[in-house]
């Protein structure tokens, strides 16, 4: 089992789009994990994790089931604190980072009961809650909500119950919530589970257009074909980082087989 050395990690970063754009001065990272180790019990779920994500990147974290992807996401978002090493968000320790509006989070499903009567607009309005706190939404907040709905093509669905939406439409609504919050970083945890193939393509097109507008995308995904078609940088994880670099290099490398412990191949368009 091999992990990237610090040198290899830095080389991979040099190849990434953000580093190319940054001329001689590298941009401040949005996410930085240094030698992170974490375990729910004595056995670590992830270890020796060093990741640096800079503004404008489109990064996918892939790995087999139980590889620690979701744990890594929680460490990045500050929902868990590393046992060893450090994790920062926008330059602040992740666990104490308090400008939550800068991060949009999209999960497979919301935690509420499926019968909860809530409209798409009400969900998108939640993106403004970190801005208004205990107050009420202003006319400007409502305008931002309308713009976010238009951006994801869901204006006509604004007053529909979320329960009446297809999987792809629901994920668009969650992205609109992140846009309404004016997030700089969009974190998506396996967002296309249960979404039909046609909607998945439209969903990734949406992510790409948002990335073109400057929003940093961090995608945790099981669908290797989809991420290699769209993401610019892949981090392949199985407790440790097996690969961190441009997507083209990942497809040609043996990291996938090593991380998944099988002769896996990517079934994408590449």
């Amino acid at each position: 089992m091999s992990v990237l050395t610090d040198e290899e990690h830095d080389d991979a970063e040099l190849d990434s789009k953000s580093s190319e754009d940054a001329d001689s001065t590298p941009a401040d990272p949005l996410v930085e994990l240094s030698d992170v180790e974490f375990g729910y019990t004595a056995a670590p779920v992830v270890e020796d994790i060093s990741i640096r994500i800079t503004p404008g990147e489109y990064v996918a974290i892939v790995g087999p089931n139980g590889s620690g992807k979701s744990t890594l996401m929680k460490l990045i978002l500050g929902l868990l604190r590393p046992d060893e090493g450090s994790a920062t968000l926008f330059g602040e320790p992740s666990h104490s980072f308090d400008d939550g509006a800068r991060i949009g989070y999209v999960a497979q499903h919301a935690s509420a009961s499926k019968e909860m009567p809530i409209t798409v607009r009400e969900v998108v309005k939640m993106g403004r809650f970190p801005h208004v706190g205990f107050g009420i939404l202003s006319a400007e907040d409502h305008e931002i909500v309308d713009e976010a709905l238009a951006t994801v093509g869901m204006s006509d669905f604004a007053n529909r119950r979320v329960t009446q939406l297809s999987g792809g439409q629901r994920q668009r609504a969650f992205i609109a919530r992140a846009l309404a919050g004016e997030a700089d970083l969009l974190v998506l945890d396996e967002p296309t589970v249960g979404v039909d193939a046609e909607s998945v393509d439209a969903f990734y097109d949406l992510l790409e257009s948002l990335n073109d507008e400057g929003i940093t995308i961090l995608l945790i995904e099981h669908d290797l074909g989809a991420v290699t078609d769209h993401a610019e940088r892949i981090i392949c994880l199985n407790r440790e980082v097996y690969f961190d670099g441009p997507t083209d290099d990942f497809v040609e490398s043996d990291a996938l087989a090593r991380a998944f412990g099988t002769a896996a191949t990517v079934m994408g368009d590449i």
Partner: protein
Amino acid sequence: MHVELFALLQAGPLDAVLAPFYWLLSLWSKAMFGLYDATGLEFLQYQFMHRAILVGLCIGVMAPLIGTFLVHRQLALIGDALAHTAFAGVAVGLFLNGVFSLGVSPYLTAVVVAVIAALLIELISEATDAYNDVSMAIVLSTGFALGTVLISLNAGGLAVGINQYLFGNLSTVSAENAAILLVLFGIIVATIALTRNQLLYVTFDETAAAVSGISVTWYNRVMVMLTALVVVGAMQIMGVILVAAMLVVPVAGAAQVSKSFTQSLLVSVVLAELAVLLGIGLSYYGGATAGGVIVLVAVAIYTVSVIAGKLQERASDDSVPELGSIDSSDA
């Protein structure tokens, strides 16, 4: 003026706090007498019914308000667990009054014990990383067991009055208890109004709420403590055994016919008020226990809501709008 001030000071801190609410009660009673003069409805001539109606109206607002958040987090049974611990609180109050002649309202001790139990449930859920049936069952059983033990230890007449706490009673809503309920009502409604954004976000998507900077742990605690207060407040009329129904049934009915979360809050309050007022009226004329009648009416309304919801679904067989194109220039 001096006499009034002296009487206020003599009455103790609780009466001093409740004084404005006694004044509100007297105003309410005057209004009810006015309504009696206008309508001739027999039950409006009794002051205990005035208090019962006011308490019922307050329950009809606060129970579905907090119940909406509980039901959609699939925590419908937490009200039942807290009601049983509130019963232990009543028993503690009765015990203290019986042994030490303290003269404390059992509803106040119920508030204290139920809030402690609420925090206990929350701490267990935090420690085990999930709300679970086992922790609620343990708290529920412990509360009821403690209540029955304390009552049996002090059997010199205490057991006689316990039925009113188990099943609720319109005629035993004292002015003091009604005033306490008005205080609870103010605290509950004000807290929900203030924290509605956070409670909604935590209810709908706990992880996204945490990522956005909302302290999920803190708001979960707020939610269970408010539930404890609602349960104690509603216990006077509903009784321990049926109090949880007011947190759940109107909310479940509203979810069937509402198109949005805001609408479901309003509809659940309307359905709850309908159940309370019809229930109180029917129980008075039928000579039945109010709590039971209110719940039966609420369940009947829920049944109608389910049917109305299905009909609404069938009627709104509208065309699905086209998914709009992605407009990245707005991003």
